[in-house]
């Protein structure tokens, strides 16, 4: 929705006031409701579908391939595609780069290791469906999708199943091509339950006055002064800690206190969000399974 100057001023004053008042009466640390489901794409190792009440939908798939490599950083490839945007549009490229960077910097490569020479290479493909119709006329940008995309990749990676390795894991002396069990019932999780590793979650925090708000809605983005994306994994703040342009209107500089508030907010909500996502993972998916 394109906001008038009066509307913008009204929203700005309520957001930047002492008690942050948001247009949809959320608290400053509250997410919009969203639904998610996992493992519904039959020909992928892991998949997830996250969708919000306003119809934005994020479908993520993870596919794995066996490669012989020593270059661990090339084991993760990320591609983000947005409906109505060209593959090489600045937004798609930048979101892909941000997500890839955050995953590569915070990944436990041990879980991808098959033998000393062979690794799983994973491809994370993200598709955003139903972008709001007024996107081209409004002053907000779609960088706020980053948190939705990272939740999608979190769920897809966590629900990723890989075939059971039947050959030896030690090929230091003799090269041996890995072989796998045919039975998908024996498939193992990419991230075993015993592992402490969690894929990174990236949160988008809006800065307005000296206040910080999580998960800014499209209306709120139009009046925000600045935005930061902050990574979270295993109870810690991890890279990226980076400014993002949430709107095309002019903003204001922020001080270090506000930045500290933003990182504090992410630390505070990281755990509950991880728990909520883990709860979705533990649910049995039958909604789609019963169709086939």
């Amino acid at each position, binding site marked *: 929705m394109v906001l008038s*100057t009066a509307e913008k001023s009204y929203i700005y004053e309520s957001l930047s006031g002492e008690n942050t008042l948001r247009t949809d009466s959320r608290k400053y640390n509250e997410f919009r409701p969203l639904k998610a489901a996992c493992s519904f794409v039959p020909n992928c190792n892991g998949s997830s579908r996250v969708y919000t009440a306003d119809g934005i939908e994020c479908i993520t798939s993870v596919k794995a391939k066996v490669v012989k490599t020593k*270059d*661990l*950083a*090339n084991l993760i490839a990320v591609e983000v595609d947005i409906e109505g945007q060209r593959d*090489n549009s*600045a*937004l798609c*490229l*930048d979101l*892909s*780069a*941000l997500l*890839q*960077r955050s995953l*590569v*910097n915070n990944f436990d490569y041990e879980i991808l290791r098959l033998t000393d020479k062979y690794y799983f290479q994973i491809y994370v493909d993200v598709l955003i469906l139903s972008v709001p119709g007024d996107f081209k*006329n409004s002053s907000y940008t779609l*960088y706020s999708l980053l948190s939705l995309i990272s939740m999608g990749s979190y769920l897809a990676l966590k629900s990723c199943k890989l075939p059971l390795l039947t050959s030896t894991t030690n090929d230091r*002396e003799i090269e041996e091509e890995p072989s796998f069990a045919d039975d998908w019932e024996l498939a193992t999780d990419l991230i075993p339950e015993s592992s402490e590793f969690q894929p990174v979650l990236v949160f988008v925090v809006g800065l307005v006055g000296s206040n910080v708000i999580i998960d800014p809605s499209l209306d709120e983005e139009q009046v925000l*002064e*600045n*935005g*930061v994306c902050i990574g979270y994994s295993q109870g*810690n*703040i*991890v*890279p*990226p*800690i*980076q*400014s*993002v*342009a949430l*709107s*095309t*209107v*002019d*903003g*204001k*500089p*922020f*001080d*270090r206190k506000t*930045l500290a508030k933003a*990182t504090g907010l992410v630390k505070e909500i990281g755990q509950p969000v991880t728990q909520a996502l883990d709860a979705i993972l533990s649910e049995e998916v039958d909604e789609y399974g019963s169709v086939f």
Partner: protein
Amino acid sequence: MNIDRRRNLGPANVKPLVFAESAPAKQDPDTRVFLETGLIQNCNGSSYLENDKTIIITSVYGPRPNFTRSFNDQANLKINVELSKFLPLDNFKDNQKNIVPDKDRLVSSLESFLLSNYQSLILLQNYPKSSIEIFVQVVALNPTHSLLYTLKNILNSVSVALVDSGLNIKAIACSGYSGSDSHETVVNFAAKDEILGIWSDFQDFDSTFDQSIDACENDSAQLRKEINGYLLKKATKNAS
């Protein structure tokens, strides 16, 4: 059954082969900067920045009329980054990981970061129905410079070009860099404790994060002194 493993493991007193370090030893970057403004005639403002074999040219065009939308109550800012062909981008790796980013993705990351910075600096509301375009060209690159160190140079080059263009800006921005083996941070300051943008790959987030911002602030304050001195000298020279 006893298996003789000696053939596989080799003699007990064997020493592993060690090759000489092939990568050049890391040196502290030369922080001296050569700066010149107004070299390009056909734009509204330009700057030429040279730092330790890295050369960055920035030109600012605008405000120019923009009729692409029905109504623009403020200027539309566009930033275009160009990395010249055959630049040694090998050192633009992410953090300590051995990944060289795709050039297109790199350019769009830089562009969007610069946009988020300068949207907060330029008084876009003073220029309705217009567009402002900033072109950044990285002409030469020191192969030992990392992505974030180069970003600092780019930010400073754009800030000076904006001053030269005479566009209404809130302050003269100046960015600072702090880096170690484990992390790098760039913070762009509009003034003391006024952050326009931050890009950090801090792995172990603790009190040292604050210290690294302090280091960036000091670096930026030092550079700001130099840049202000240069701009003042140039302004008084033009006046006389």
